[in-house]
């Protein structure tokens, strides 16, 4: 099959048709990404009779839904910050603190696995360990006399969910920050020492500023990651925790909101929040790419 790329059609005609090669991709994206999203968008503007309305968006401020957003945002923010800070420290520990290479390889591999362990298995593991009858809970109660549930801890709550989410938030931070830390050129450290700076000054004036877009961007990624999570929360609490994703799931299983349009508005609200997060992430990535090149 002989094909000529240096074809005879005029250049302008060739340019305007070349995008057709992307058609399958665009069709797929349309059918399974854009259309579902658009459908939700459209649905959110309709009430139960199908007429156009803004009421659904106003109804988002009902207490139950407001609480759902608030809880989701809280969990996401907390796990983003905690996961971000400790994940960064962990990434720093394995890249810069002079530990043996096998520690780094082992940890990075483990992080890859841990971040994919999320969902049902992760929830079960935490229930086994920190649930009311969990191994650690029992051990603390029987051997140390400390009943964490008496003290107010509850795995099936905000604290418990956050603790569980961290299991895949830490690894995500480590996996992204380790290469970023590697991107800190050795010469920068040497040049700064050469010019008279201490280690602390190096970190404060050079390394952290350079890494900051990456750190912030990844924390935003972590936020989005937690905000959109469903399986882990569902497997952990069976739907009793009031999160946005859980509410959407409940709506899908039965019309609990008594108004499908409201459910769509809920989902749309979620997409908007994730969209803003993604926008910030992309912007911060651009800056960091420029500096770490």
């Amino acid at each position, binding site marked *: 099959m002989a094909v000529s790329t240096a074809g005879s059609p005029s250049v302008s005609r060739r340019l305007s048709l070349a995008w057709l090669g992307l058609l399958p991709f665009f069709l797929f994206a349309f059918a399974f990404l854009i259309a579902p999203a658009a459908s939700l968008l459209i649905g959110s503007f309709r009430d139960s009779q199908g007429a156009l309305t803004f009421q659904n968006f106003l109804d988002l401020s009902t207490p139950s839904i407001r609480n759902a957003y608030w809880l989701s945002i809280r969990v996401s923010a907390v796990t983003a910050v905690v996961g971000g800070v400790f994940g960064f420290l962990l990434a720093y520990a394995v890249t810069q603190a002079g530990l043996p290479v096998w520690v780094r390889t082992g940890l990075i591999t483990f992080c890859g696995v841990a971040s994919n362990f999320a969902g049902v298995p992760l929830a079960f593991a935490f229930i086994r360990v920190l649930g009311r009858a969990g191994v650690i809970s029992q051990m603390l109660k029987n051997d140390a006399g400390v009943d964490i549930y008496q003290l107010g801890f509850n795995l099936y709550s905000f604290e418990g969910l956050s603790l569980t989410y961290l299991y895949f938030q830490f690894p995500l931070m480590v996996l992204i920050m380790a290469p970023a830390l590697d991107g800190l*050129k050795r010469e920068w450290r040497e040049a700064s020492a050469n010019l008279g700076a201490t280690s602390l000054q190096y970190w404060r004036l050079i390394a952290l500023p350079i890494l900051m877009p990456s750190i912030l961007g990844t924390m935003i990624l972590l936020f989005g990651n937690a905000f959109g999570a469903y399986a882990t929360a569902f497997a952990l609490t069976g739907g009793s925790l009031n999160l946005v994703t859980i509410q959407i799931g409940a709506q899908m299983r039965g019309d609990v909101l008594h108004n499908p349009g409201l459910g769509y508005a809920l989902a749309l609200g979620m997409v908007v929040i994730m969209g803003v997060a993604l926008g910030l992430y992309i912007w911060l990535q651009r800056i960091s790419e420029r500096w*770490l*090149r």
Partner: protein
Amino acid sequence: MGFLDLINIRKTFGAADAVAEFNLEVERGEFVSFLGPSGCGKTTTLRMIAGFEPPTAGQIRINGVDVTSKSPNQRNVGMVFQSYALFPNMTVAGNVGFGMKVTRRPKEEIAARVKEMLALIRMPELDNRYPYQLSGGQQQRVALARALAIRPQVLLLDEPLSALDAKIRVELRGEIRRIQRELGITTIYVTHDQEEALSLSDRIVVMSAGHIEQIGGPFEIYNFPKTAFVASFVGTLNQLRCQVVDPAGGKLSLEGQTLLSNSPVSAAAGQPVLAMLRPEELHFGAANGENRLDGEVLSVVFLGAVVRVQVGIGSSVLTLDALNERRLTLPKVGDRQTVSFPPHAVWVMPAS
């Protein structure tokens, strides 16, 4: 004792010596190059002066003070890296002023010094640019200004021009020398490019496999190399395998043809030796009082300013560089050709 002394420096990595028996005294204001192939230890030695590698043995003294155990940020030496290493999150002004900022100099002093340095490297209007907005040559000049801003005792440059285009390299080379002369700063320059070393330095340290082969001025290194390595590393070299005929008279035989060197030879008669000759000291045709060899033209390459001809003499090959002249008729491959050179152009080394 010089301004910068390296005394018996040795650096061992694992079982191997990267640098050994390194002794050097550098005078104040001198420009010294470390020249050698990759892996010869020149960069390692430079990094020891900067304090990034501790020597396994030996001492480093700057202006009489023993700095061997001092950390890099206490030595007040300025370093310019091959990859520029400008801090990407700071402007040019921020980079140049960094050394003074971390030693908490007053703001006005920093601003004045930055201005002075930018004028020195002839880039005064670029103070607000970021490194990613600059070309390679510009970045390296800023790196130079940054290293000089702290008024270092010694300036160290680690192959600063290798990452740049040929044309920029030549331009910047001149700039570096001009600035160095203007400031009178003691400078160590590491390079594998002999043209750089020859054109810039007051003295050159030729290194190989962690050892110093020879220390001397450019002319001396080029024309009076002490070892076969130096002779062949710097410039192009003819090495002719000859037999000694008369040691006292400096008479040698190359495949039946005689040639004279102008000093006695230390080997016995009948011994094989290497006669060393620079291609530019040879010329076509016979001349009075000069050595003469006859052979056949093997190749002729016209390089522009220089014509490089290879002449086969028996089984040896002689390379001859002639300066271009418009009236020149180039010899043809296969022609018989006579080549001559004065006796003082030859020096003799033992055949290893």
